[in-house]
């Protein structure tokens, strides 16, 4: 069934397009810089790894130190956003007409875009983790890995997938045709992410902190770092929030894209 809704030709042509675009190499440079920044900060923290109190009875080793990477939420979001811009460039250049008029189903086209954005973002994530693990091996042993780490890994990968779904949905909503629905959903998705996550003074008092935590629980599902929480239900809340957002966004995105006129 999965083969019936994925158009591999679209993914192949998108990859070819991406490698031919100069802007892709600029984006790769920006992402490499962001990754290096995160890796270097972690590199500074690594010699003092024994001073950290891991949450939930967790143990830090050179493998699991990737959890310490700073600002993972924002850094995970950047490749998704930038890859999505390349993936949906067909609307700006009107080449979407060439593709859809050749009998390519709109759902297949949509799903292929989500997979393409996720694949590129996931590849970048894996590269970052591998870099930290190799660096970490100079400071600590690999050690044993317990179940919490695998749950965290799954949560990160699942979040990347959900963020890809949401970002592609918002992009399709806005680019296929601006409507009241597309504006509302874009607002609901982006404003909490960017405004609340950077609005530190918002969390300076008890009241502000409570609002921020509640908003984070339900909106900023991918920005909560494990190292900041001792909540045993953290993973469940995180996965649930991600799943709800991805499902609603994708449903809206596909519905909107299917019925809209392509100009």
């Amino acid at each position, binding site marked *: 069934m999965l083969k019936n809704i994925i158009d591999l030709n679209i993914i192949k*042509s998108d990859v*070819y397009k991406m490698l031919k675009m100069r802007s892709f190499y600029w984006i790769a440079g920006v992402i490499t810089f962001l990754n290096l920044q995160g890796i270097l900060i972690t590199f500074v923290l690594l010699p003092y790894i024994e001073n950290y109190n891991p949450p939930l009875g967790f143990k830090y080793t050179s493998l699991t130190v990737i959890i310490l990477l700073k600002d993972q939420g924002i850094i995970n979001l950047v490749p998704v956003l930038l890859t999505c811009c390349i993936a949906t460039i067909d609307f700006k250049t009107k*080449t979407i*007409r060439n593709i859809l008029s050749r*009998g390519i189903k709109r759902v297949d086209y949509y799903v292929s875009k989500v997979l393409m954005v996720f694949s590129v973002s996931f590849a970048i994530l894996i590269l970052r983790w591998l870099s930290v693990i190799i660096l970490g091996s100079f400071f600590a042993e690999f050690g044993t890995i317990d179940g919490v780490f695998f749950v965290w890994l799954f949560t990160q990968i699942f979040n990347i997938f959900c963020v890809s779904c949401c970002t592609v949905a918002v992009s399709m909503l806005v680019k296929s045709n601006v409507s009241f629905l597309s504006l509302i959903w874009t607002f609901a998705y982006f404003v909490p992410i960017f405004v609340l996550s950077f609005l530190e003074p918002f969390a300076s008092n008890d009241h502000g902190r409570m609002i921020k935590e509640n908003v984070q629980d339900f909106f900023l599902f991918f920005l909560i770092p494990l190292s900041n929480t001792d909540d045993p239900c953290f993973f469940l809340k995180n996965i649930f929030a991600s799943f709800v957002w991805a499902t609603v966004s994708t449903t809206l995105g596909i519905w909107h894209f299917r019925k809209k*006129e392509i100009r």
Partner: protein
Amino acid sequence: MGLVLKTSMLTKVYDGRAVVNGVNMNIQKGDIYGFIGRNGAGKTTLLRMILGLSQPTEGRIELFDNKQGLIESRKKIGSLAEQAAFYPNMTALSNLEICRIAFGGVGDKNLSLSLLRKFGFSNAVATTKKAGLFSLGLRQKLAIAIAFIGFPEFIILDEPINGLDPKATIEVRNLIKDLNKNAGVTFLISSHLLAELSKLANKYGIIEKGRLIDEFSSMELEERIEPTLMIKVDNAIRAAQVIKDIFKTQECKIINEKTVEFVGRNVTSGDINRVLNENGVLVEAISKNQIDIESYFVKVVSGSKK
């Protein structure tokens, strides 16, 4: 031969106004169908519905005798609808390759390159110059090349000759004729350049205010348009009077003091020459006008206003 396209009562309504209204169109395999209409008549809207870019409000579209369903059948269609669409920061070859891969990856880079050469692209222009820097003519040629990629069986072209120089116009015309004759490709071409269209099409459809008001073959057109004789004489007023009296017709027009235009069936140049000579009018030359689709189109459209 089967039907490549059949529309039944195809209608599109925007804000309560029917832009396309109950169109029944039939295109046989191997046809070159000339689709004619004034600006705003509904041509592009109809083409967009056929290509799946717009949903019809009512009616039905069948492609290739509906053997495979609409979406599968569209895989066999190439098109240039509305304006040319391409990636401006990529070369012509990259643009064509992206489309070739997206449409199933038939062939390889050499196929794209050979197609571009058929449209007059040199290797240097095709592989190094960014498409955004192309002239209007080159952009149009690239868009047509994209329509031809992937060996489609049915090609829809909306104003393909706009912006092309005479040499490019001839190249495109020859390519269309070649594909139609040797590969059996069916064409639906919408154009305002009726003289050019009349060199290609074997069937026509005229759309006016969303309705297909006339559909005919080029042979039927010859029967519908009465032949016109242009007669050069020494005295046009005397010649016109003689023709009207002898042939009992009012369809004789004085063009200038030495030229008369006569529309008449079953009247040969020899008859005209003999009659005028017998009545003292000197005939210098008689020529028969080509079948004029432009004047027929104007006549049909003007008639539909009443």
